[in-house]
């Protein structure tokens, strides 16, 4: 592994595609929704209202939103254990998601899936996946299916740096390349697997792994939504127009622990590192600044979005807390279709 600075993110030189004003505000709202959604997830956990654990993607919002904004709603995504962001960015509703996280019948999966298995067919989300690398085949299969059915749908496979350890990733990249499938492999390198720095688990050069299969690969700063969005637009266009698969490495960071219970992190990473990312590389701050600098909106516009999102989230939490649990008879339904 190159002993490159942990925090280094590579800047793409080109000026990214510039979303229009309304789209910019929408993008900001989406990122903020993810952040507030997950802050509340953490809250629900610490107040013992949420069963089990949950993995927060706060800090990584620009990747989820930047990629999904480049997709159509009938395009597919597959996601991971850290999947709330992908799910929301692809179009899921916060109330049904909270309900799922609380194990309620009105949740996306009737409470049967929970945080690690949220799927929402209507928005093209084929599901989070609790097996690291477990959805790589599914995304690639969805791309094959799109090609076979003659649609121009595209499939995006989100996964973390840790999933680079799973052989299936290489198996399916090989096939995607051979068969020229419309699939984009989006690797979110947030520097850590659970509690181990990626340089201890990842030899060599990440994008070179994809390139070895003749897959077009790019590495970008995952905290800059404009870069993520514009690169994604290019890669989606490639896939949709039959130019085949690609690999997008997004350098990013999770602010919280591996899961909500991972509070004492000093043995694997420093407070300084966390602060550096939170302060100088926060995707919301960066984008808000760009919006105000470019007169897309002003402080009060941002405050308005903030309060709208805040009240949506509050309503959603309330909806979920009030929602009923599934009936006991549900337990052995849906084993077979």
């Amino acid at each position, binding site marked *: 592994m190159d002993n490159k600075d942990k925090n280094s993110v590579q800047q793409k030189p080109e000026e990214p595609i510039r979303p229009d004003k309304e789209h910019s505000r929408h993008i900001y709202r989406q990122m903020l929704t993810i952040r507030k959604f997950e802050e509340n997830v953490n809250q629900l956990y610490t107040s013992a209202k949420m069963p089990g654990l949950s993995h927060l993607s706060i800090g990584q919002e620009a990747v989820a939103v930047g990629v999904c904004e480049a997709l159509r709603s009938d395009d597919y995504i597959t996601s991971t254990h850290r999947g709330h962001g992908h799910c929301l960015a692809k179009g899921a509703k916060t109330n049904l998601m909270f309900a799922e996280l609380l194990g309620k019948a009105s949740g996306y999966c009737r409470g049967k899936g929970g945080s690690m298995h949220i799927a929402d067919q209507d928005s093209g989300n084929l599901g989070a996946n609790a097996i690291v690398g477990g959805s790589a085949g599914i995304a690639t299969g969805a791309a094959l299916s799109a090609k076979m059915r003659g649609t121009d749908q595209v499939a995006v496979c989100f996964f973390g740096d840790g999933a680079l350890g799973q052989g299936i990733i290489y198996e399916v990249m090989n*096939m995607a390349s051979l068969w020229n499938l419309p699939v984009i492999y989006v690797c979110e390198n947030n520097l850590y697997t659970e509690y181990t720095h990626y340089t201890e688990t990842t030899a060599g050069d990440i994008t070179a792994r994809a390139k070895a299969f003749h897959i077009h690969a790019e590495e970008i700063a995952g905290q800059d939504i404009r870069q993520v969005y514009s690169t994604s637009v290019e890669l989606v266009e490639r896939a949709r127009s039959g130019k085949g698969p690609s690999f997008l490495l997004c350098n990013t960071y999770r602010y919280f622990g591996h899961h909500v219970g991972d509070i004492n992190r000093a043995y694997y990473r420093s407070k300084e590192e966390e602060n550096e990312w939170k302060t100088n590389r926060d995707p919301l701050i960066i984008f808000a600044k760009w919006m105000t600098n470019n007169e897309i909106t002003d402080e009060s516009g941002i405050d308005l979005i903030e309060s709208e999102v805040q009240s949506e989230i509050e309503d959603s939490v309330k909806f979920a807390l009030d929602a009923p649990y599934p009936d006991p008879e549900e337990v052995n339904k849906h084993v077979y279709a």
Partner: protein
Amino acid sequence: MPELTDRVITFSQAVNEALAEEMRRDKTVFIIGEDVAEAGTPFKVLSGLVEEFGTERVLDSPISESGFTGIGVGAAMTGMRPVVDIMFGDFMTISMDQIANQAAKIHYMSGGKLKVPLVVRTNLGASRRSAAQHSQSLHVWLSHIPGLQVALPSTPYDAKGLLKTAIREDNPVIIFEDKMMLQDKGNVPEEDYTIPFGVADIKREGSDITLIGTSSMVQVALEAADQLEQLNISAEVIDPRTIMPLDKKTLIDSAIKTSRVIVIDEGYDSYGVTAEIASVIAEGAFYHLEAPVKRIGAMDVPIPFSPVLEDLTVPNPAMVVEKAKTLFSGI
């Protein structure tokens, strides 16, 4: 029950015909696996399909069982009906995550929203001098996982009918063919037919003892039944045809009728299919059994290469007859 027909074809032809018919009927059906196209698999079961359906629907894959099984799962979730070909059942060990953690659970985990109409076609059975990594019968693993269905055809007729049902099912189905049966011949109608899952087939009626066999062990049971007839023992032979779902009622009813049961399956004996079936019957027919339910599985050893050893590990009619005799001698 088989329709009356004079047409006799092989097991292998029956499988091929089922696939061809379903692929003609439904454009979403496709095949993916190693050497499935021009080669038609090493067993030549798929010969001719690529010629009719093209390489777009008969996909030669790299040697990536985990990857292409996963691709099958994803394709199944998005409108296709893939038939994933795993060349030897032993290689499913490589794709068990995709089968047992993904395909099996997605419908349930999504609260019933997503479906995985996937067929995994693979095989089981020893006796080909292929040694320990090409001779296993691992079907019990799959039967243990809720969400999967497991079919074990024992005749060309069943092979065609069960495979067609599997392809039309909205759930993942694992269908195991015994490599030694591919050239077996039998009556198979030309018309379209399917065989419902969870319905056992009484392959031979009898009154003194029930022999339950799966896959090629049905033939072993039938041969044993012939030999038992010489000894004036009337054996009923039942083929569950699918072991998940399992037609418990037919098995228990027969056990109640005959009061003696032997279960024969080619998986390893311990913790195998014979254990489930034996325990279902021991419970369901408890007050009617004259003797304990006996189990005959493959010997609990990695399958040896040497023919003189391998043949000792697989159940055969003589073993069944010997075991049956002990059930009548009083103990």
